[in-house]
């Protein structure tokens, strides 16, 4: 196995073009355990962390650009990002331990395509876009379109994610992420629920995104829950409707981490709780009307 650390996107693209069994990585927190458990070894390990763009976290007029290899510890330490995307940052902070946090990335979390990954539901709920580089240049897709099934992505050979783009949220908007794990830390989600809520000036839901993790091969958007919220106050019957819709939308499997029945039931509970938290945050005064 060879180690390479390109310093530009172009260099990385070229390297991947010349080495069919090369593998990009950021934190290697998924990749090394997978190799240890017997998955085929790549011939070249392409470390993306020496490319500035892949580690940068920048705030622009339109929103944020977050490098695909930026450690989640840096993401969590970014106050501006956390203020605008509290749920997405919470999801990032849930990955592994402090040790893992110093390595784990959004790019790896998404491209690893584990159905139980913590940040993809929040990336989806916030309509994040992934900028992808490859032999044919760069293209931008919705983060929701990257993972296509357990361990499978829409990335073609030689492509990798460069960065994520997030639009600045409208007024009275906030997100939340909740997950269920048997332990308090160091555990993989049995169910995850990401919610983003926009309120109107009267405190009714103007826009909603509800996305579930670990209950299907990829992140599930719960359209019925979103519809049940629009135009209503995020309380009482609306929350009950979210719970029922999320449970119904979940299409989980029985595995070592949980059962179908459990995941369905808890998907509803977490979605309801996440809606309540996101709505509470959306109503915070600092998220009021923007100039």
């Amino acid at each position, binding site marked *: 196995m060879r180690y390479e650390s390109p310093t530009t996107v172009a260099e990385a693209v070229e390297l991947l073009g010349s080495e069919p069994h090369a593998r990009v990585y950021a934190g290697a927190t998924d990749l090394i355990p997978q190799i240890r458990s017997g998955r085929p070894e790549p011939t070249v390990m392409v470390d993306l962390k020496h490319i500035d763009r892949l580690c940068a976290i920048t705030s622009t007029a339109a929103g944020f650009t977050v490098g695909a290899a930026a450690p989640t510890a840096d993401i969590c330490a970014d106050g501006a990002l956390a203020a605008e995307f509290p749920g997405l940052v919470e999801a990032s902070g849930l990955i592994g331990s402090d040790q893992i946090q110093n390595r784990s990335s959004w790019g790896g979390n998404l491209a690893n395509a584990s159905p139980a990954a913590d940040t993809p539901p929040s990336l989806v709920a916030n309509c994040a876009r992934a900028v992808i580089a490859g032999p044919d240049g760069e293209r931008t897709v919705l983060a929701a379109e990257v993972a296509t099934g357990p361990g499978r992505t829409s990335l073609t050979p030689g492509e990798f994610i460069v960065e994520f783009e997030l639009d600045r949220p409208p007024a009275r908007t906030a997100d939340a992420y909740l997950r269920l794990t048997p332990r308090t830390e160091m555990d993989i989600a049995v169910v995850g629920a990401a919610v983003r809520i926009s309120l109107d000036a009267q405190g009714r839901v103007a826009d909603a995104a509800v996305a579930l993790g670990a209950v299907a091969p990829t992140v599930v958007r719960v359209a019925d829950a979103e519809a049940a919220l629009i135009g209503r106050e995020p309380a009482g019957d609306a929350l009950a409707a979210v719970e029922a819709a999320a449970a119904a939308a979940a299409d989980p499997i029985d595995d*070592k981490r949980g059962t179908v029945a459990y995941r369905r039931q*808890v998907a509803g509970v977490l979605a309801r709780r996440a809606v309540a938290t996101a709505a509470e945050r959306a109503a915070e005064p600092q998220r009021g009307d923007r100039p």
Partner: protein
Amino acid sequence: MTITEANPGYKGYKYVGTRLIRPDGLEKVTGKARFAADLNLAGQLHGAVVRSPHAHARIVSIDTSRAEAMPGVKSVITGDDFPSVDPGHRQYDMCVNIIARDKVFYEGHAVAAVAASTLEQARAAAAAVEVEYEALQAVLTIDEAMADDAPVLHSHMLTRGAEPPAEAPSNVASVTRFSGGDLEAGFAEADFVVEREFSTKPVHQGYIEPHACVADTGQDGHTTIWCSSQGHFNVRSSTATLLGWENTRIKVVPAEIGGGFGGKTTIYLEPLAAALSSQAGRPVKMVMTRSEVFRATGPAPCAKIRVKFGARSDGAIVAADAHLIYSNGAYQGAGGMLGAMTVFESYKIPNFAVEALDVVVNTARSAAYRAPAAPLTAFATETVLDEIAEELGIDAMDLRLKNAVKEGDPSTMGFPLARVGFAECLEAIRSHPHFSAPLGPNQGRGLAAGYWFNIGESSSAIVNLNEDGTATVVTGSPDIGGSRASMALMAAEELGIDPHDIRPVVGDTEAVGFTDITEGSRATFATGRAVVEACRNMVIELRGRAATMMEAEVGDIDWVDGHAVYTGDGDSEGKEPLSLAVIAGKAKRTGGPLTATGSLEAHGAGPSFTVHLCDVEVDPETGVVSIVRYTAAQDAGTAIHPSYVEGQIQGGVAQGVGWALNEEYIYDSDGVMENPGFLDYRVPVASDLPMIDAVIVEVPNPAHPYGVRGVGEAGIVPPIPAVANAIHSATGCRIRDLPMSPVRVLEAITAAGARANGG
């Protein structure tokens, strides 16, 4: 550097009971301590093991030729390289577990091993060993093993203890029965009878250090093994047995051990490394991966338990019946028998019967785990007692106090108990502020008691006095939790010198007398007694030397606070007290080096009782259980080093809580373990636990000079029922299957809700 210590002595002892900085501590906080995997010898090869992918299969053939031809490979061994072993041999199971012969009995069973210049080469060669298997139907659960048409794992296995004697082989290794009184009459006398069933899953000891060893066989055949084990004399004899060697051919040097909890009382790698080394003529290092540790080393047995209790309305337990089935993995084990010895031990029950079965299945051979079998019997007994208390309207604490065994009561096996501290532990919990603290919403409190009988066995110690009056204390007990500190304290107390002037060390198999494994909570009790005996022999010698120096009769010399003091009626001129250092400094002129030994077979270990109180908070919508407060009182007899007694209690609680809530082996339908790593085998992490208030109760054990009772194991016994009782108190649900994971707790809550709604 200065190192300060808290708590000066108590109970009239000068050193015993103080919190000495452990002598091996500095090396461990600076990264210098050598654990087995830290050793590297010049020219050393690396070993790798070929393991079965099948849970049950016949080995048709093994072709090592491709592996042997690979780069760097120096030796390859299979079962054929070891002497054949007869199923009747006492250590047969251990031998064929370490390397399979004609059959493999679990996924991960070793079938061959390779040594090569680098670990990568060894692993590549191991992957190139071609093993042809004929897969057999795997038997994974107790029910499958006991089914009428179950495939029989071991064709030689006739049920031991069966009445009438077994004629055909089966998967039931043994039956154990105890009884006393008249069961039928007992139940007839009861006002309330309750019968319950319990089931559990295998769990792993979960020590953080994987098994590791280095073996070096010289051209004369003499082999030195450095390894991490709970008993290096046992490593020596087991390795010798497997290889057909004499004990003298092997020297085992104990490395620091990174946790064992019973799992390192047996061996796995050492004979393989020794065989590879003797073939290759080079040292061979072998280290397991975490996945190998989970798949191929000792989980604790799991069990199905049925208990029936009868109580009078005043709370007196008048009858109890237990039927226990323990699954011990691929080979016969003692889970059931130990379960039978613990299920009713805590309470005085006039009429009882226990039947325990030990069963084999196609999972890794089980090994001891802290108070083996007892946590599961306590799960049954202590939760049913809770139910009885609830039913009879008696406080759970009062019910236990009413029935608790005390000195003189007969044990299940009929022997009268010596002085025990059960009632004292119950009282300690009752008077603890935790007992009456208010609970928050969704919180519940559970009480449970635990018992472990402890063992004595053989121990040896040597005390050598150095010219400057310092001492070296050599024992044969690997130190798995700070026992060297306790040895230094006891020796200091006996010799009357500062414990900092004593260097306690663990000697190799050629440096100290035979010593049994560190197990059964025996080190401080039995090896401590050997140290005390060696010190007392030393004091006799010192008094003799002082007599020579003072020109007095030895009978006129006492040993007081580290000094020989003349107490005779004669002229005391020139007979001023002589310090140990002065006598040691003159040893050359009074008879030569000062050395004394103590070797004994320790009896009277005396059981340890413990009582736990646990508060949980249950999320009623997700079934997640958080431990919010925990208090554990345990009888330590005398705490030689209180910090390490507390540490044993706290560690036992943490393991027991893990067992209760989330730990379990998960197998797929072919018997392949699905969670062989710490991400999905969920031991508690720091944020899963509160502080664990350890209350040391001291009811001295009459069989130890300082009153020590072993404390290493009992702490793991009550947590499972304490958590279960707390969950019941919080939710009204009784859970009788482990683990009490969120999935299972929510199932119970949902089912209870449905029942309530249904009327």
